[in-house]
């Protein structure tokens, strides 16, 4: 008979964990990630302390135009926040909407269509309203369609939304690169294909606070954040989402129309992302083929890092935005660094946080301590 020895270490599910320990694990994870990032920086001859300082202060320190940095930060932060919030709706339902990129593009495209078609003929208020409504509707249908296929035929939503991301992207490129008389998206003045700038009525209004001008999409984003919190926590819809996400069988048993809930939630999720796209182009005043700035992907990371907690999403997307904008700001001093470093660091942070999750959910039992336990019982 072969001899079998105890393994050196075993993985055992934790029953519960002290909240402070949880926080400690996450702090260690982030510190470890920054350390690894720092080592990489040293390897290419950049002093990590200086860079991190520049990055996390988004270039405000010592700048006479610090408010410009905040304005820039907000342009990155608003779409990311709204997209992450929207994704958390579908993730809470365990519906894998990874189509944020595509939905954002469709929303931006719809808003731009309205802006370019009716920009001259409508008042600013009604034009903006129409832009945002059509952005939401278009993106909502674009995403809701996947949910419809999923509930009707069990079409895999992860792979389907993934495909639609690229279909949307090439649609946008088609409008952005095809010079033809019908193509009202492009500017007539340029020889090369360039997107047409919107009329002034389509600009997102700003509120001036001294020199600083606050894009009001920021206020909307904060309102949406609070709204999503109440939607998930207090309303019947939110309750339905958590039941469906927890157990679809139980939801059916309780008389919920699970299919309707999935399609509706996915519609809302995609519509919100579309709205983010609408806000973005209205603030940028022009469409662009790289309009998403990867928020569809980053949003997934934010939602996951935040454990789908609404207010954590606010914090995490702010942190990620600071990293991204900060990396850009730091590039004036370190030409080697650009927003890709933010992506890299983001990736490292998430790797470590995923690892921290493991230590929160499981504990390791080593051979010796296992024996000790056995000895105690015997």
């Amino acid at each position: 008979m072969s001899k079998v020895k105890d393994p050196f270490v075993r993985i055992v599910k934790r029953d519960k964990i002290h909240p402070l320990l949880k926080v400690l694990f996450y702090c260690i994870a982030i510190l470890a990630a920054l350390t690894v990032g720092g080592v990489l920086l040293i390897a290419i001859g950049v002093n990590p302390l200086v860079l991190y300082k520049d990055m996390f202060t988004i270039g405000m320190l010592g700048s006479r135009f610090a408010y410009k940095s905040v304005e820039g930060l907000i342009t990155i932060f608003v779409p990311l926040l709204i997209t992450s919030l929207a994704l958390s709706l579908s993730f809470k339902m365990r519906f894998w909407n990874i189509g944020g990129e595509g939905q954002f593009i469709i929303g931006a495209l719809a808003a731009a269509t309205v802006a370019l078609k009716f920009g001259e003929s409508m008042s600013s208020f009604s034009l903006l309203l129409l832009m945002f409504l059509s952005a939401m509707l278009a993106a909502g249908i674009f995403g809701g369609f996947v949910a419809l296929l999923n509930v009707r035929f069990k079409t895999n939503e992860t792979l389907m939304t993934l495909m639609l991301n690229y279909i949307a992207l090439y649609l946008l490129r088609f409008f952005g690169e095809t010079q033809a008389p019908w193509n009202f998206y492009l500017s007539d003045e340029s020889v090369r294909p360039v997107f047409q700038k919107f009329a002034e009525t389509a600009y997102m209004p700003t509120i001036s606070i001294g020199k600083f001008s606050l894009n009001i999409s920021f206020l909307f984003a904060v309102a949406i954040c609070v709204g999503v919190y109440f939607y998930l926590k207090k309303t019947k819809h939110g309750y339905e989402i958590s039941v469906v996400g927890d157990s679809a069988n139980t939801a059916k048993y309780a008389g919920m129309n699970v299919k309707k809930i999935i399609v509706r939630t996915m519609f809302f999720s995609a519509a919100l992302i579309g709205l983010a796209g609408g806000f973005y182009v209205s603030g940028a005043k022009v469409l662009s083929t790289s309009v998403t700035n990867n928020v569809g992907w980053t949003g997934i990371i934010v939602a996951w890092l935040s454990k789908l907690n609404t207010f954590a999403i606010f914090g995490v997307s702010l942190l990620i935005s600071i990293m991204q904008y900060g990396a850009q700001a730091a590039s004036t001093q370190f030409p080697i660094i650009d927003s890709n470093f933010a992506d890299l660091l983001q990736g490292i942070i998430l790797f470590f946080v995923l690892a921290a999750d493991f230590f929160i959910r499981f504990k390791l039992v080593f051979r010796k301590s296992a024996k000790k336990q056995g000895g105690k019982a015997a």
Partner: protein
Amino acid sequence: MNQLEVLTLFLFNIVVYNIPLLYGTVGEIIIEKSGSLNLGVEGIMAVGAIFGYLIGCSVNSLTVGILASFLCAGLFGVVFAVLTVTMQANQNVTGLTMTTFGVGLFFFIGKGLSGSWPVMTAYSNINDGFKNALEIPLLSKIPILGKAFFSHNILVYLGVVIAVAVWIYLNKTKTGLRLRAIGENPAAADSLGINIALYKYIHIIVGSGIMGIGGYYMGLNLGGSFEGSNCWINGYGWIAVALVIFANWSTAKAILGTLVFGFFNTLQIYSGSLAYAFPKSLGFLSNVPPQLYQALPFIITALVLIFASVNKKKKMAQPAALGLNYYREER
């Protein structure tokens, strides 16, 4: 150029430009057959590409470059394996992070080296090794097809050989059978004493390694020039994820699928010359927007996904436990 030459060149380039898709797809099929959905293909290919290129150039050897791209991408795959297999992290999120990180690392290293970036033409072994066509005796003499399909560089053949070998491995060997059992029903495999974690680790690593070679190929095909804005992989990793579905999780069909997807990819570049060479029959090609060709692989895959789910009788070969983590003591 006469008609024949245009056609030959078109077919030739379908292969040349799109073999990385085959590498990516075969790698992903190996990983998915073990039950893991890895959305990090793009990132893994990027990591394989840059390390393969830099290490290959440092010793001026194509072989070393191939090995380095395989090993570095495989090493990067370990991150996915540790997080999803041992640490039970969500596969979708981990995969996406692999992409974010991998592409970020690609640029980070590229920019870090900006001044001392190796130029491919300076490394004769690599440059010639990649550009020299190996003609297959007899077959390469067939008109049109011979030049188009049987006169390519070594990495093209290697890709096809790997695809065929993996097909045999998965379908005709005992280890392959065990791997498929894990992807279908890990609890059943576990009860038979198959070491699930070991199998998953090995196949994630090997699959990632194969993707890495594909990334290296892309870099070489672009002449190894680093531009600050475009990643060499340029979305091919995502097309590979789509191609896995189109090929119905078969590496043999992936060869065919590579040609189909490659056909559209290449049309985007060659539609003009084809239309010029065959004005009567293919003249319409110049009126088709190139973005449609780029989108077609994704449109086709989306349609395959929809039709496969509508038509329940023709079940797809998607592993039943794909995307689910396995924890023995789950209850």
